[in-house]
């Protein structure tokens, strides 16, 4: 089923901030098999010029779709999750994410288009600190296989 284009341009702020913890960063680094001490040891991170342990570059995936999750599941949108695969992902970093950051994330359904038999939906998320300092922007493109057929 074709996706409902009325959703394009709608923005969904996360209902609460995401507090970045050292333990979560360590867990994520372990899950991707990366033993870099900069993800674990605050002293190593500080020696490299960072205020605290650094999050791996793909870490924002942990929280960047949370705000849009309800909209993506809205029957009005018409997205069949059983047919969804991850098509593209991009991160633009203003600065790294650190343990201790309190982050806000506002997600916008920025584009819906058909490519062949598939529907492509892109969510763009603006990640900032609670004070409004930009941290990163993420682009997440989902493919609904057969959605445009």
């Amino acid at each position, binding site marked *: 089923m074709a996706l409902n284009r009325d959703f394009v341009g709608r923005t969904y702020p996360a209902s609460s901030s995401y507090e970045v913890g050292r333990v979560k960063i360590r867990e994520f680094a372990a899950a991707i*098999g990366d033993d*870099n001490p900069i993800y674990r040891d605050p002293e190593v991170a500080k020696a*490299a010029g960072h205020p605290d342990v650094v999050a*791996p570059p*793909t870490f924002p995936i*942990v929280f960047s779709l949370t705000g849009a999750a309800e909209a993506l599941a809205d029957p009005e949108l018409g997205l069949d999750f059983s047919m969804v695969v*991850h098509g593209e992902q*991009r991160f633009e970093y203003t600065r*790294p994410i650190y343990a201790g950051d309190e982050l806000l994330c506002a997600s916008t359904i920025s584009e819906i288009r058909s490519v062949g038999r598939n529907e492509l939906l892109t969510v763009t998320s603006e990640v900032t600190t609670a004070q409004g300092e930009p941290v990163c922007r993420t682009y997440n493109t989902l493919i609904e296989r057969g959605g445009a057929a």
Partner: protein
Amino acid sequence: MTATVKYDEIEVGQQIPAVDYPVRRVNLVMYAGASGDFNPIHWNERHAKAVGLPDVIAHGMFTMAEAGRFVTDWAGDPGAMVDYGVRFSSMVVVPDNDEGAVITVSGVVEEKLDDNRVVVALTARSGDARVLSRARATVRLA
């Protein structure tokens, strides 16, 4: 934020040697827990086959993380990453055995930008498949 690779010593066309990243089922279970992506195609063979997949497949974001690690290990600092994007072009099939699968990542310096930034074009393969396309990382070097 101190990258260890020096911008002035890098040339366009320079190859970054390939690294193999093994992936077994346990890695996908760990990644599901750490990322919050519990889609059963990444851990349940019965479900994966029921929806037409050959077997359990790795999270695309797991592959993206391995290729990102390739870049940050080369640059010397994860904080050096300025921009990182990929397209997921094929699946990494992870069989239920001790060997699992292997993701092989290599790179080439595609462009030098201002402000000590370089663009690295990445290639990621698993078996015969090219699992990422249009994979580019921009990093700020020393």
